[in-house]
Protein backbone atom coordinates (compact mmCIF):
# COMPACT_ATOMS: atom_id res chain seq x y z
CA UNK A 1 0.00 0.00 0.00
CA UNK A 2 1.73 3.12 -1.25
CA UNK A 3 -0.47 5.75 0.35
CA UNK A 4 -2.74 6.28 3.30
CA UNK A 5 -6.18 5.28 2.01
CA UNK A 6 -8.15 8.00 3.81
CA UNK A 7 -5.94 10.87 2.69
CA UNK A 8 -8.67 12.25 0.46
CA UNK A 9 -11.04 12.62 3.43
CA UNK A 10 -8.42 14.50 5.40
CA UNK A 11 -7.72 16.76 2.45
CA UNK A 12 -11.41 17.68 2.20
CA UNK A 13 -11.53 18.38 5.90
CA UNK A 14 -8.47 20.58 5.57
CA UNK A 15 -10.05 22.51 2.70
CA UNK A 16 -13.24 23.12 4.70
CA UNK A 17 -11.12 24.28 7.62
CA UNK A 18 -9.07 26.62 5.42
CA UNK A 19 -12.22 28.04 3.83
CA UNK A 20 -13.59 28.71 7.30
CA UNK A 21 -10.43 30.52 8.28
CA UNK A 22 -10.51 32.66 5.16
CA UNK A 23 -14.15 33.60 5.84
CA UNK A 24 -13.25 34.47 9.45
CA UNK A 25 -10.33 36.67 8.45
CA UNK A 26 -12.37 38.47 5.76
CA UNK A 27 -15.39 39.04 8.02
CA UNK A 28 -13.17 40.22 10.87
CA UNK A 29 -11.41 42.67 8.59
CA UNK A 30 -14.76 44.10 7.51
CA UNK A 31 -16.28 44.32 10.99
CA UNK A 32 -13.35 45.53 13.12
CA UNK A 33 -12.57 49.24 12.52
CA UNK A 34 -9.13 49.88 11.08
CA UNK A 35 -8.08 52.07 13.98
CA UNK A 36 -9.01 49.50 16.64
CA UNK A 37 -5.88 48.62 18.59
CA UNK A 38 -3.94 51.65 17.34
CA UNK A 39 -3.25 52.77 20.94
CA UNK A 40 -4.88 50.00 22.95
CA UNK A 41 -8.00 47.86 23.11
CA UNK A 42 -10.25 50.56 21.66
CA UNK A 43 -11.01 52.47 18.44
CA UNK A 44 -8.15 54.94 17.93
CA UNK A 45 -10.33 57.21 15.77
CA UNK A 46 -12.65 57.74 18.74
CA UNK A 47 -10.00 60.10 20.18
CA UNK A 48 -10.07 62.46 17.20
CA UNK A 49 -13.86 62.22 16.99
CA UNK A 50 -14.18 63.36 20.61
CA UNK A 51 -11.55 66.06 20.03
CA UNK A 52 -13.57 67.46 17.12
CA UNK A 53 -16.54 68.40 19.33
CA UNK A 54 -17.28 72.15 18.89
CA UNK A 55 -16.01 74.59 21.53
CA UNK A 56 -18.70 76.64 23.33
CA UNK A 57 -16.62 78.70 25.78
CA UNK A 58 -14.23 80.81 23.72
CA UNK A 59 -11.57 81.23 26.42
CA UNK A 60 -10.17 84.41 27.96
CA UNK A 61 -7.48 84.98 25.32
CA UNK A 62 -10.20 85.35 22.67
CA UNK A 63 -11.88 88.11 24.73
CA UNK A 64 -8.56 89.92 25.20
CA UNK A 65 -8.02 90.32 21.45
CA UNK A 66 -10.89 92.84 21.12
CA UNK A 67 -11.98 94.01 24.59
CA UNK A 68 -8.65 95.44 25.71
CA UNK A 69 -10.37 98.38 27.47
CA UNK A 70 -12.44 96.11 29.73
CA UNK A 71 -9.46 93.82 30.39
CA UNK A 72 -7.45 96.89 31.48
CA UNK A 73 -10.19 98.01 33.91
CA UNK A 74 -10.57 94.49 35.22
CA UNK A 75 -6.82 94.04 35.75
CA UNK A 76 -6.80 96.83 38.35
CA UNK A 77 -9.58 95.39 40.54
CA UNK A 78 -10.47 92.44 42.69
CA UNK A 79 -11.98 90.64 39.67
CA UNK A 80 -8.69 90.60 37.78
CA UNK A 81 -8.52 86.83 37.73
CA UNK A 82 -12.21 86.23 37.01
CA UNK A 83 -12.54 85.17 33.37
CA UNK A 84 -15.03 87.12 31.23
CA UNK A 85 -17.14 84.05 30.54
CA UNK A 86 -17.55 83.30 34.25
CA UNK A 87 -20.18 86.07 34.26
CA UNK A 88 -20.99 86.69 30.60
CA UNK A 89 -21.47 83.01 29.77
CA UNK A 90 -20.21 80.93 26.83
CA UNK A 91 -19.31 83.23 23.93
CA UNK A 92 -17.64 81.12 21.22
CA UNK A 93 -20.49 82.05 18.83
CA UNK A 94 -19.90 85.74 19.60
CA UNK A 95 -16.19 85.43 18.79
CA UNK A 96 -17.00 83.78 15.46
CA UNK A 97 -19.53 86.47 14.50
CA UNK A 98 -19.19 89.49 16.82
CA UNK A 99 -21.52 91.62 14.69
CA UNK A 100 -24.72 89.63 14.89
CA UNK A 101 -24.30 87.42 17.98
CA UNK A 102 -24.39 89.68 21.04
CA UNK A 103 -23.94 88.45 24.62
CA UNK A 104 -27.14 88.81 26.65
CA UNK A 105 -27.52 91.69 29.12
CA UNK A 106 -26.82 90.52 32.66
CA UNK A 107 -28.87 90.92 35.81
CA UNK A 108 -26.38 91.91 38.51
CA UNK A 109 -28.84 91.08 41.31
CA UNK A 110 -28.73 87.39 40.28
CA UNK A 111 -25.15 87.29 39.09
CA UNK A 112 -23.38 88.97 42.01
CA UNK A 113 -25.26 87.03 44.66
CA UNK A 114 -24.28 83.70 43.09
CA UNK A 115 -20.79 84.33 44.39
CA UNK A 116 -21.24 86.97 47.07
CA UNK A 117 -24.40 85.88 48.95
CA UNK A 118 -23.28 84.93 52.43
CA UNK A 119 -23.07 81.23 53.18
CA UNK A 120 -21.42 79.50 56.13
CA UNK A 121 -19.67 77.02 53.83
CA UNK A 122 -17.84 79.72 51.86
CA UNK A 123 -14.22 80.46 52.84
CA UNK A 124 -14.23 83.05 55.64
CA UNK A 125 -11.93 85.46 53.76
CA UNK A 126 -14.21 85.57 50.72
CA UNK A 127 -16.30 88.81 50.58
CA UNK A 128 -19.92 87.91 51.34
CA UNK A 129 -23.05 89.97 51.99
CA UNK A 130 -26.66 89.34 52.97
CA UNK A 131 -28.23 91.11 49.98
CA UNK A 132 -31.31 92.53 51.78
CA UNK A 133 -29.32 94.09 54.61
CA UNK A 134 -26.49 95.22 52.38
CA UNK A 135 -28.35 97.10 49.64
CA UNK A 136 -32.04 96.97 50.67
CA UNK A 137 -32.99 95.56 47.27
CA UNK A 138 -31.05 98.00 45.07
CA UNK A 139 -29.21 96.40 42.13
CA UNK A 140 -25.54 95.85 42.89
CA UNK A 141 -24.35 98.00 39.99
CA UNK A 142 -25.97 101.07 41.54
CA UNK A 143 -22.77 101.37 43.57
CA UNK A 144 -20.35 98.73 42.28
CA UNK A 145 -18.93 98.59 38.77
CA UNK A 146 -18.65 94.80 38.22
CA UNK A 147 -15.37 94.98 36.24
CA UNK A 148 -13.74 96.77 39.17
CA UNK A 149 -16.09 96.52 42.13
CA UNK A 150 -14.41 98.87 44.61
CA UNK A 151 -16.72 101.86 45.25
CA UNK A 152 -13.75 104.26 44.96
CA UNK A 153 -13.58 103.42 41.27
CA UNK A 154 -16.69 105.55 40.68
CA UNK A 155 -19.62 103.14 40.46
CA UNK A 156 -21.88 103.00 37.41
CA UNK A 157 -21.41 105.97 35.10
Amino acid at each position, binding site marked *: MSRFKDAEHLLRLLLVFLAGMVVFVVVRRILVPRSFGEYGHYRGNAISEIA*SQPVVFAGHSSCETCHTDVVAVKARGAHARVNCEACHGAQAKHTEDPGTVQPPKLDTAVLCSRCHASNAAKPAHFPQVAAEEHSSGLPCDTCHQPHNPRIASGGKQ
Partner: protein
Amino acid sequence: MKFSRRQILILLPAAAAAWDAVLAGTPETAPNYAMTEHWWGMLVDVSKCIGCGNCVRACATENEVPEGYFRTWVERYHVDDYNLAEPIVDSPDGGKQGFPPALQAGGKNFFVPKMCNHCAESPCTQVCPVGATFITPDGVVLIDKKYCIGCRYCIQACPYGCRFLNPHTETAEKCSLCYHRITKGLTTACCEACPTGARQLADLKNPKDPIHEFLRTHTVQVLKPHMATGAKLFYNDLDGSVR
Protein backbone atom coordinates in the same frame (compact mmCIF):
# COMPACT_ATOMS: atom_id res chain seq x y z
CA MET B 1 -21.00 53.15 -19.72
CA LYS B 2 -20.22 49.52 -20.19
CA PHE B 3 -17.41 47.61 -18.54
CA SER B 4 -15.95 44.38 -19.81
CA ARG B 5 -15.12 41.63 -17.36
CA ARG B 6 -11.43 42.40 -17.85
CA GLN B 7 -11.91 46.11 -17.05
CA ILE B 8 -13.85 45.29 -13.88
CA LEU B 9 -11.09 42.92 -12.76
CA ILE B 10 -8.52 45.66 -13.34
CA LEU B 11 -10.62 48.19 -11.39
CA LEU B 12 -11.14 45.89 -8.40
CA PRO B 13 -7.78 46.61 -6.65
CA ALA B 14 -8.38 50.37 -7.00
CA ALA B 15 -11.83 49.99 -5.47
CA ALA B 16 -10.33 47.95 -2.62
CA ALA B 17 -7.76 50.67 -1.97
CA ALA B 18 -10.51 53.33 -1.91
CA TRP B 19 -12.62 51.26 0.51
CA ASP B 20 -9.56 50.92 2.72
CA ALA B 21 -9.33 54.70 2.93
CA VAL B 22 -13.02 54.88 3.85
CA LEU B 23 -12.53 52.35 6.64
CA ALA B 24 -9.47 54.19 7.94
CA GLY B 25 -11.86 57.02 8.90
CA THR B 26 -11.35 60.66 9.82
CA PRO B 27 -7.87 62.19 10.05
CA GLU B 28 -6.42 63.83 13.19
CA THR B 29 -8.32 67.05 13.97
CA ALA B 30 -5.72 68.89 16.03
CA PRO B 31 -2.55 68.56 13.94
CA ASN B 32 -0.32 70.57 16.30
CA TYR B 33 -1.22 68.49 19.33
CA ALA B 34 1.07 65.60 20.28
CA MET B 35 -0.58 63.12 22.64
CA THR B 36 2.73 61.77 23.90
CA GLU B 37 3.77 65.18 25.27
CA HIS B 38 0.95 65.52 27.82
CA TRP B 39 -0.39 63.76 30.90
CA TRP B 40 -3.51 65.53 32.07
CA GLY B 41 -4.90 65.90 35.56
CA MET B 42 -6.63 68.57 37.60
CA LEU B 43 -6.09 70.46 40.82
CA VAL B 44 -9.03 71.36 43.05
CA ASP B 45 -8.33 73.85 45.83
CA VAL B 46 -11.11 73.19 48.35
CA SER B 47 -10.19 76.31 50.35
CA LYS B 48 -11.04 78.47 47.31
CA CYS B 49 -14.39 76.94 46.33
CA ILE B 50 -17.35 79.25 47.03
CA GLY B 51 -20.07 76.87 45.79
CA CYS B 52 -21.36 79.26 43.11
CA GLY B 53 -22.11 76.40 40.69
CA ASN B 54 -20.42 78.15 37.73
CA CYS B 55 -18.49 74.98 36.91
CA VAL B 56 -21.63 72.82 36.87
CA ARG B 57 -23.47 75.22 34.56
CA ALA B 58 -20.45 75.71 32.30
CA CYS B 59 -19.96 71.96 31.96
CA ALA B 60 -23.63 71.46 31.07
CA THR B 61 -23.43 74.21 28.45
CA GLU B 62 -20.16 73.06 26.92
CA ASN B 63 -21.03 69.37 26.78
CA GLU B 64 -24.84 69.38 26.49
CA VAL B 65 -25.24 67.40 29.70
CA PRO B 66 -28.92 66.36 30.09
CA GLU B 67 -30.99 68.06 32.81
CA GLY B 68 -30.67 66.27 36.15
CA TYR B 69 -27.36 64.59 35.24
CA PHE B 70 -23.88 65.86 36.03
CA ARG B 71 -20.39 65.43 34.63
CA THR B 72 -19.20 67.63 37.49
CA TRP B 73 -21.06 68.64 40.62
CA VAL B 74 -20.41 70.42 43.91
CA GLU B 75 -21.09 68.93 47.35
CA ARG B 76 -21.51 70.86 50.59
CA TYR B 77 -20.10 69.20 53.70
CA HIS B 78 -21.14 69.86 57.26
CA VAL B 79 -18.99 68.19 59.91
CA ASP B 80 -19.82 68.39 63.63
CA ASP B 81 -16.78 68.85 65.84
CA TYR B 82 -14.92 65.54 65.73
CA ASN B 83 -17.46 63.36 63.89
CA LEU B 84 -15.47 62.87 60.68
CA ALA B 85 -17.12 59.53 59.96
CA GLU B 86 -20.61 60.97 59.55
CA PRO B 87 -20.56 64.24 57.65
CA ILE B 88 -23.86 65.72 56.45
CA VAL B 89 -23.55 66.18 52.69
CA ASP B 90 -25.98 67.94 50.39
CA SER B 91 -25.83 68.87 46.72
CA PRO B 92 -29.13 70.39 45.56
CA ASP B 93 -29.34 69.97 41.75
CA GLY B 94 -25.61 69.21 41.79
CA GLY B 95 -24.96 72.71 43.10
CA LYS B 96 -26.00 74.06 39.70
CA GLN B 97 -27.95 77.00 41.16
CA GLY B 98 -25.66 77.57 44.12
CA PHE B 99 -26.47 76.64 47.71
CA PRO B 100 -29.12 77.93 50.15
CA PRO B 101 -27.89 78.99 53.61
CA ALA B 102 -26.81 76.02 55.74
CA LEU B 103 -29.49 74.49 58.00
CA GLN B 104 -27.09 73.23 60.65
CA ALA B 105 -25.46 75.72 62.97
CA GLY B 106 -21.85 75.48 64.10
CA GLY B 107 -19.40 72.82 63.07
CA LYS B 108 -17.32 72.98 59.94
CA ASN B 109 -18.77 73.77 56.50
CA PHE B 110 -17.09 73.67 53.10
CA PHE B 111 -17.68 72.87 49.43
CA VAL B 112 -16.07 70.03 47.46
CA PRO B 113 -16.28 70.04 43.65
CA LYS B 114 -16.29 66.55 42.17
CA MET B 115 -15.89 64.97 38.75
CA CYS B 116 -14.09 62.14 36.94
CA ASN B 117 -10.67 61.52 38.50
CA HIS B 118 -9.15 60.43 35.16
CA CYS B 119 -7.48 57.53 36.93
CA ALA B 120 -4.30 56.10 35.48
CA GLU B 121 -5.40 52.59 36.55
CA SER B 122 -9.11 53.10 36.18
CA PRO B 123 -11.57 50.38 37.21
CA CYS B 124 -14.09 51.67 34.64
CA THR B 125 -11.83 51.03 31.65
CA GLN B 126 -10.93 47.59 32.96
CA VAL B 127 -14.51 46.33 33.09
CA CYS B 128 -15.75 47.56 29.70
CA PRO B 129 -16.54 44.44 27.66
CA VAL B 130 -16.33 46.11 24.23
CA GLY B 131 -13.42 48.54 24.48
CA ALA B 132 -15.74 51.57 24.51
CA THR B 133 -14.02 53.32 27.39
CA PHE B 134 -10.30 53.75 27.57
CA ILE B 135 -7.45 55.98 28.73
CA THR B 136 -5.77 57.97 25.97
CA PRO B 137 -1.97 58.18 25.68
CA ASP B 138 -2.24 61.66 27.27
CA GLY B 139 -4.06 60.36 30.35
CA VAL B 140 -7.71 61.22 29.74
CA VAL B 141 -10.41 58.59 30.29
CA LEU B 142 -12.87 58.83 27.39
CA ILE B 143 -15.97 57.06 26.12
CA ASP B 144 -16.47 55.97 22.51
CA LYS B 145 -20.20 56.61 22.08
CA LYS B 146 -20.33 54.55 18.89
CA TYR B 147 -18.97 51.47 20.66
CA CYS B 148 -20.76 51.74 24.02
CA ILE B 149 -23.54 49.17 24.32
CA GLY B 150 -25.01 50.78 27.46
CA CYS B 151 -24.41 47.78 29.73
CA ARG B 152 -23.75 50.11 32.72
CA TYR B 153 -20.88 47.95 33.98
CA CYS B 154 -18.53 50.97 34.11
CA ILE B 155 -21.12 53.00 36.03
CA GLN B 156 -21.02 50.40 38.80
CA ALA B 157 -17.25 50.09 38.65
CA CYS B 158 -16.44 53.78 39.18
CA PRO B 159 -15.63 54.24 42.90
CA TYR B 160 -16.31 57.98 42.65
CA GLY B 161 -19.81 57.79 41.15
CA CYS B 162 -18.78 59.90 38.17
CA ARG B 163 -20.64 58.06 35.42
CA PHE B 164 -24.26 58.00 34.32
CA LEU B 165 -26.26 56.61 31.45
CA ASN B 166 -27.35 59.34 29.06
CA PRO B 167 -31.13 58.78 28.75
CA HIS B 168 -31.19 60.05 25.14
CA THR B 169 -28.24 58.14 23.65
CA GLU B 170 -28.41 55.19 26.11
CA THR B 171 -24.64 55.25 26.35
CA ALA B 172 -22.40 55.81 29.36
CA GLU B 173 -21.28 59.39 29.89
CA LYS B 174 -18.91 61.34 32.14
CA CYS B 175 -16.38 64.14 32.20
CA SER B 176 -14.11 64.11 29.15
CA LEU B 177 -11.77 66.70 30.75
CA CYS B 178 -13.05 68.83 27.83
CA TYR B 179 -10.77 66.85 25.53
CA HIS B 180 -11.97 68.93 22.57
CA ARG B 181 -10.72 72.04 24.37
CA ILE B 182 -7.44 70.93 25.96
CA THR B 183 -6.22 69.53 22.63
CA LYS B 184 -6.71 73.03 21.16
CA GLY B 185 -4.72 74.74 23.92
CA LEU B 186 -7.76 75.92 25.89
CA THR B 187 -8.55 75.04 29.47
CA THR B 188 -11.65 73.06 30.44
CA ALA B 189 -15.07 74.79 30.55
CA CYS B 190 -15.27 74.39 34.36
CA CYS B 191 -11.83 75.95 34.88
CA GLU B 192 -12.68 78.75 32.42
CA ALA B 193 -15.85 79.58 34.35
CA CYS B 194 -14.47 79.17 37.89
CA PRO B 195 -14.25 82.71 39.34
CA THR B 196 -11.85 81.91 42.20
CA GLY B 197 -9.35 79.56 40.56
CA ALA B 198 -10.49 76.68 42.73
CA ARG B 199 -10.06 74.43 39.69
CA GLN B 200 -6.87 74.30 37.65
CA LEU B 201 -6.17 72.10 34.67
CA ALA B 202 -2.80 70.44 35.14
CA ASP B 203 -0.39 68.96 32.61
CA LEU B 204 1.80 66.62 34.64
CA LYS B 205 4.21 66.06 31.74
CA ASN B 206 4.83 69.76 31.18
CA PRO B 207 7.72 70.83 33.41
CA LYS B 208 6.62 74.50 33.11
CA ASP B 209 3.17 73.80 34.54
CA PRO B 210 2.83 75.43 38.00
CA ILE B 211 1.19 72.20 39.23
CA HIS B 212 4.63 70.72 40.04
CA GLU B 213 5.55 73.57 42.37
CA PHE B 214 2.08 73.41 43.94
CA LEU B 215 2.25 69.64 44.57
CA ARG B 216 5.69 70.02 46.15
CA THR B 217 4.65 72.76 48.55
CA HIS B 218 1.13 71.75 49.61
CA THR B 219 -0.53 68.86 51.39
CA VAL B 220 -2.41 67.45 48.41
CA GLN B 221 -4.60 64.35 48.43
CA VAL B 222 -6.62 62.26 46.01
CA LEU B 223 -9.98 60.67 46.85
CA LYS B 224 -9.99 57.01 47.99
CA PRO B 225 -6.22 56.51 47.68
CA HIS B 226 -6.58 53.02 49.22
CA MET B 227 -8.29 51.87 46.02
CA ALA B 228 -5.07 52.49 44.05
CA THR B 229 -6.91 53.89 41.07
CA GLY B 230 -4.09 56.30 40.20
CA ALA B 231 -6.51 59.23 40.45
CA LYS B 232 -5.24 62.47 38.89
CA LEU B 233 -7.78 64.81 40.46
CA PHE B 234 -5.68 66.40 43.21
CA TYR B 235 -7.36 68.12 46.16
CA ASN B 236 -5.69 70.77 48.24
CA ASP B 237 -6.92 71.34 51.81
CA LEU B 238 -9.16 68.28 51.71
CA ASP B 239 -10.92 67.42 54.96
CA GLY B 240 -10.71 63.86 56.27
CA SER B 241 -14.49 63.54 56.18
CA VAL B 242 -14.67 63.73 52.38
CA ARG B 243 -15.45 60.42 50.69
